């Protein structure tokens, strides 16, 4: 009971902190924050299933994928008009200095979310399709000494991958964009 209470309190504090950090946001900044929060909650709710901790439910994946897809792509880019970086915003000015990259990431998110739905038929732990090489550690090609992640799998490839791996790819898209374009704090 004590532990539950502590967990609830910690959870409550966390929510309060997150809510507070979005306080003061209005208009389009608020709108895109709400979109991001919706994606965040979707990821949070789907994580236990993707980790094989809860029973697999294809429908839940389809719903989550649809939610992610809905908030990505042009829906997302439309919420970042130039100059919309007021004090409450976490958007870095680099978004508008390198709009092409930002836009490509938003579009990539939409594609990967679509593939997540396709991959819903391959529960966590399914076999990987051939040939997926994830060992690009040090640079171009299959050596490890280079590049960030391996070459980006296309939608067809993603659709054949185990759903949890596609979920991880989606997280990589989130992370790459947050790394480049989200401020740590104002």
């Amino acid at each position, binding site marked *: 009971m004590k532990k539950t209470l502590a967990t609830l309190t910690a*959870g409550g504090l966390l929510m309060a902190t997150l809510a507070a950090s979005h306080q003061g946001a209005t208009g389009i900044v608020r709108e895109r924050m709400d979109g991001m929060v919706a994606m965040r909650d979707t990821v949070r709710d789907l994580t236990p299933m993707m*980790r094989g901790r809860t029973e697999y439910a294809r429908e839940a994946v389809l719903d989550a994928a649809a939610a992610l897809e809905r908030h990505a792509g042009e829906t997302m880019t439309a919420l970042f008009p130039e100059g919309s970086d007021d004090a409450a915003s976490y958007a870095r000015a680099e978004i508008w200095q390198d709009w092409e990259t930002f836009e490509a990431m938003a579009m990539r998110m939409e594609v990967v979310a679509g593939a997540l739905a396709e991959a819903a038929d391959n529960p966590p732990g399914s076999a990987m399709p051939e040939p997926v090489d994830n060992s690009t*550690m040090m*640079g171009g090609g299959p050596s490890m*000494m*280079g590049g960030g992640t391996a070459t980006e799998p296309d939608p067809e490839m993603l659709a054949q991958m185990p759903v949890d791996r596609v979920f991880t790819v989606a997280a990589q898209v989130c992370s790459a964009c947050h790394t480049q374009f989200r401020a740590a704090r104002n």
Partner: protein
Amino acid sequence: MKWWKLSGLLIGVVAATSGAVILWPIGTRPDPIRLDGDVGRGAYLARASGCIACHTNAEGGGAPLAGGVELETRFGTYYSPNLTTDPVHGIGDWTIEDFAVAIRQGISPEGEPYYPTFIYPFYADFTDQDIADLWAAFQTVPAVAEAAPDHDVGFPFNLRWTLKLWRAAFLTDPETEPVDGRSDIWNRGRELARGAAHCGACHTGRNIVGARITSSFYAGNDALPGGDHAPSIRLEDLIDQGWTVDSLVYALETGITPSGDVLGGGMGEVVQYGTSFLTPEDRLAIATYLMDPEDEDWVRE
């Protein structure tokens, strides 16, 4: 004493002291390293150590390990050097011993101390085998004949010899060796966290000259280069933020946090270019160490 005599004396003292510091020899040459290196192991260590993350200008479309990543600090702007096999602009004309001294001691083949923006203090305990493995891996990197920009650092930090004083005052052992009575996985986590994975580079507070403060071990840093911010990763704060060993493991693999948010900033980079490439065992080791810290470090306030 006349003012000019006094100032003359002062100038003399300063000149003599700085002259002595300039000539002060630093570092020790290792015995020749003749071990066979393993490319796979070396590349893995390079991933774990952040070589690729810091020396690849991914945002600027740069080639792997060709350097040029900008680091804006209060001392000036630093650019990570080219570590490709190009003999002029990279490290193609180095020997393995040059490489060992650079990595473990932070000293260039010309005998100049590196700025602590290069986090060599974390690599001090790398074994000769680690060095041989890394060296073998770096030999596989295609040459890029392009110089990384020079550091743009103001006086007095532009005087490399002042770093000898910094080294004398602040260079400490990373303490990565196993602790008796602790599990293998915990000790592996300690080795990674305090060594290669260099958590403290960002998560430990730094003093006015950029040296890590022991009492701020893992307590977070609000003044990272480029205005970034690293939260505390002390046990009590991790627990406060809802972290467990299990969720840390997953975050190091995917960037996904317990709230469903996905890490960005410097940590996003760490995951994307580093920890996502580690084995599940190594991610578990780091998480195990962080969630079961060493007592003495947490009471040193």
